[in-house]
């Protein structure tokens, strides 16, 4: 604000307005029009709440996923028979588990085999109605390799695996209607009754096992006429060497046809899931930004109307000694108030949504600080942009024009 002529000696002190008085003055407008102010701030609230809760939820869920991965380990390799040229499915050599055990960093090897035949609640159920459940023969250390846990009863032991005993995966137990083992329960595996000795918790790294009735190899041979042939081998290796182990795995398992062996890392599947979730996060973030922009336009709109409606107030304040700058600051600060109130409410709402949803999902609540400060900061930025034009317009109004009553 340049001074055209008139040194301080000839014009006297300029008018002044302290920061505190600017804030006080700017708060009178919104305070005397509460409903309109609240509605205009609502757009910002929704936008910020969307941003904060999307960031909070994705952080909470990925924190949960990372925790899950840490618990399950990223050192589990799954070895399967791949496609062979011409002759359909190939199979793994019978001595594959033994050969894998010879790889130095490997400390756990558990084989499982799919066995033909269905899983039934009783022998009266029509053959073929297996409810998508399969019979799997497994080594005794399967649970260690999967780092899985027992929900009820116990896992197979060296004593039990010779007898017709079965452990159910979590989904299998549910589909068979077996939820507790306080009374002895048996299921029909096509040729023989098997006693249920345990139920597993879900195994996130091998969802196929959740839908299986798991029996021991000796029982499979004795009661279901099964001939040993591993289908899938779960391998745990020391984490720092897991990639090296993976690179020699195919040749170790099947030196003649290494291309017929498929090796995968189970945790990769979970990581892919995390990546898919983050794609959704970006979509919702985009929606939040759109809501924020619409909220900003709402505030700009309300401020433009306020400047028109309060023309007389602007004229009066100019007559009382307010400079153009004071008028501009008053309306700009008012716009900041609206957006800051909306932003604060949005941050609180976003935190609330995140906490409630995370609790329902049993996640630890993780809200990144950049979501909180970024959310509030962007609401202030929007408020400043929205208030810029209305406040300049108010400031440029001539006092005589502003004091006109019609």
């Amino acid at each position, binding site marked *: *604000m*340049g*001074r*055209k*002529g*008139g040194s301080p*000696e*000839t*014009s*006297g*002190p*300029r*008018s*002044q*307005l*302290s920061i*505190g*008085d600017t804030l*006080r*003055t700017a708060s*009178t*407008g919104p*305070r*005397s029009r509460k409903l309109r102010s609240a509605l205009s701030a609502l757009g910002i609230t929704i936008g910020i709440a969307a941003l904060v809760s999307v960031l909070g939820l994705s952080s909470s869920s990925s924190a949960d996923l990372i925790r899950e991965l840490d618990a399950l380990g990223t050192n589990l390799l799954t070895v399967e028979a791949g496609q062979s040229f011409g002759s359909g499915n190939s199979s793994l050599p019978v001595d594959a588990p033994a050969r894998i055990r010879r790889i130095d960093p490997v400390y756990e090897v558990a084989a499982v085999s799919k066995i033909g035949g269905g899983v039934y609640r009783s022998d009266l159920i029509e053959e073929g109605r297996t409810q998508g459940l399969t019979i799997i023969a497994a080594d005794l250390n399967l649970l260690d390799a999967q780092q899985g846990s027992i929900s009820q009863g116990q896992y197979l032991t060296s004593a039990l695996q010779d007898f017709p005993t079965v452990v159910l995966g979590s989904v299998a137990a549910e589909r068979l209607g077996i939820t507790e083992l306080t009374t002895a329960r048996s299921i029909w595996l096509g040729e023989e009754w098997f006693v249920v000795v345990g139920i597993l918790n879900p195994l996130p790294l091998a969802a196929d096992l959740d839908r299986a009735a798991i029996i021991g190899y000796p029982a499979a041979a004795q009661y279901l006429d099964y001939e040993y042939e591993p289908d899938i081998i779960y391998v745990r290796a020391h984490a720092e060497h897991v990639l090296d182990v993976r690179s020699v795995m195919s040749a170790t398992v099947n030196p003649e046809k290494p291309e017929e062996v498929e090796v995968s890392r189970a945790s990769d599947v979970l990581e892919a899931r995390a990546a898919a979730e983050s794609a959704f996060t970006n979509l919702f973030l985009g929606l939040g930004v759109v809501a924020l922009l619409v909220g900003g336009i709402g505030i700009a709109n309300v401020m433009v109307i306020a400047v028109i409606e309060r023309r*007389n*107030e602007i*004229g*009066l*304040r*100019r*007559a*009382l*000694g*307010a*400079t*153009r*700058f*004071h008028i501009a600051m008053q309306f700009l600060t008012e716009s900041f108030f609206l957006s800051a109130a909306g932003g604060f409410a949005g941050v609180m709402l976003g935190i609330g949504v995140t906490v409630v949803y995370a609790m329902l999902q049993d996640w630890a609540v993780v809200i990144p600080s950049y979501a909180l400060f970024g959310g509030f900061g962007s609401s202030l930025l929007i408020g400043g942009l929205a208030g810029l034009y209305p406040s300049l317009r108010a400031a440029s109004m*001539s*006092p*005589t024009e502003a*004091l006109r*009553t019609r």
Partner: protein
Amino acid sequence: MMQSTTNVSQPQTDLSEEFALKLQGVTKSYAGTPPVHALSDVSVSVRHGEFVGIVGASGSGKSTLLHVIGTLTRPTSGSVFINGMNTDGMSDGALSGLRSRDVGFVFQEFFLISGLSAVQNVANGLLYSGVQEADRLRRSEIMLERVGLGHRLNHLPNEMSGGEQQRVAVARALVHEPSFVLADEPTGNLDSRSTESMMELFYSLNEEGTTIIIITHDREVAERFPRQVVLKDGKIESDSGLV
């Protein structure tokens, strides 16, 4: 831009400091075809402590004169001295500072801010002159007492009658002890009884030393003023104060 100077001694550049207001050959024209000459060659001086009525029909240039005297608009030519200070070439900011100290406006429509109580509205008269808030409120309470509204301090404008609202506006115009009060049709929106008591208030304020300039179209009201300046077609037709 917010100076913290506490030196409020009035600087003087003109010897005529006995005048609260002095207009010298003021002309105000608005561009157009043909250009409109709202004021032409108006010269008038108001001494401290005077009570002056500026009377004119609508279209006589009253409103323009009000705006020129109140430094809300600049004359096309001629000079405006307020309390001995030449306002020529002052910046917008400097004029704002001048208004915050030396001019007390009273408007026909009161222009009270609806969300603020009587005392807060009066305190707005000191808002832009660098006085602390506690001091503003204290002085406003005293001023409201003086205009007879000591019992209405915390009422909102819509809880008061028109006459009371205009008294609040007068208190607001007086609270910063201006060189003169400039009232634009102050009784235009009041009934006859409120008009009477409002005029009595002005007379008593004047007796206590306040310089008062009232702009009105009402010759009957103006007839009782100690001095009348009659405006017609942008020129001064008569001035009872001239010797």
